[in-house]
């Protein structure tokens, strides 16, 4: 028999919303102005960190449809052609999910290394696709800036994963709001 318990439901909803809130926060961090010189050019891939972490440890937190929508929002906000981030993020998420069982059993340094590979792939894919749209001498300076952004992302990832790990610990065990009694 299932019984609806309002207190439990609120608890469950708040915890799930926190996880989603952190993901949206990372998306917005990717876009907001830090008011530092060149911060926009070398900005780390914050959203990619969330995509990578949840693809390994809790794929149900970020379904593919959700990643697609977040990628699309990021494209629209950052002035890139719509669908670019959506395509790359969904692609990378799927490939990380394929190897999640392997990565889950590894020490943290391997997970970090995995992220380094994923962010290199992300940066290169972003560069290749934008170069398709407009290729010129400017593409090379963009490649250099993207590589620096990739390096920064790899250095910042432990911090982000620490935060996501904190969120992971308070996530409800079940993804269903109804509590089973009796």
């Amino acid at each position, binding site marked *: 028999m299932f019984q609806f318990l309002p207190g439990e439901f609120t608890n469950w909803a708040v915890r799930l919303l926190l996880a989603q809130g952190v993901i949206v926060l990372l998306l917005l961090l990717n876009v907001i102005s830090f008011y530092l010189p060149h911060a*926009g050019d070398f*900005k780390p891939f914050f959203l990619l960190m969330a995509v990578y972490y949840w693809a390994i440890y809790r794929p149900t937190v970020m379904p593919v449809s959700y990643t697609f929508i977040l990628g699309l929002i990021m494209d629209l906000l950052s002035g890139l052609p719509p669908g670019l981030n959506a395509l790359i993020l969904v692609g990378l998420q799927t490939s990380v999910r394929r190897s999640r069982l392997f990565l889950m059993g590894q020490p943290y340094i391997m997970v970090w290394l995995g992220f380094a590979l994923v962010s290199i792939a992300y940066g290169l894919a972003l560069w290749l696709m*934008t170069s398709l749209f407009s290729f010129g001498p400017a593409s090379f300076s963009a490649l250099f800036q993207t590589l620096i952004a990739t390096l920064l992302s790899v250095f910042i990832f432990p911090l982000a994963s620490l935060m996501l790990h904190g969120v992971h610990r308070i996530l409800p065990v079940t993804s269903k709001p109804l509590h089973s009694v009796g």
Partner: protein
Amino acid sequence: MKRRTRSKVYVRFSPLQYIGSGQAPVIFMLAATLLLTVSFVRPGVFGGIRSSVTDMFTPALIALSEPFRQISVVQTGITSLSELRAENTQLKAENARLKEWYQTALMLESENQSLHALLNVKPDPAHRFITARVVADSGNAFVKSAIVAAGENDSVMKGQAVLSGEGLVGRVIEAGQSSSRVLLLTDVNSRLPVLVEGSRQKAILAGMNTDMPALKYLPVDADIKDGMRIVTSGNGGMFIPGLPVGTVIVKDGLPYVKPYADISRLTHVRIVDYPEDPYLIEGSGAPR
């Protein structure tokens, strides 16, 4: 006799379930590719959606960027006593120099006014400034744009020139209700009609995705030297003529422009509320 009960098997089919079973990535990647193809063929088709999404997120962007702005204010505010002394001496000297310039400017202004009156010159249409906060940058190396927290509600319109305190920054390319997107003059897609002050030579300022945009379409025999001032030419009715842009720097025989504005680090901008085509403005005495 015991009745034999058949176990019933319920089969439920829903298309959503099918999508969720492993086909989802393929379907969403196809959708993204389709969107990309559309934006490749018709780049402007998503403009409306882009500005509404930006409008929707602007409150969150303003709230989230505020702590970073505060940090930046504090960071620029911290200076040592010796630095303050040096700055003070420098400012005093500059003030004395500017006072002389102020007198010269007043004299020139009155002379200019009387000459205008003599020649019966048609005055330029009046313009005003809209000051807005920069809340977001593009966040990547491929697009140099910024989102400012002012839109059509504040009479910001597509095509208007955007300045920082020092000089031209770019132009408005999309205006939503409460936010608008500024294409910075360093972006690879930015092309602005400019004028080399002194030689009166017209050129196009083309963004290169680096700090210094290039000066293009100059005649071969154009005499361009380091330190020449670049201002907007006002050609095509796009901007007010004479907005300060930057100074020329010749590198490897090619002219580049170092903008007066620190484009890599913008906090506030001024948007020039100026009619896009001044020749369409009716003369004085016409009904408003």
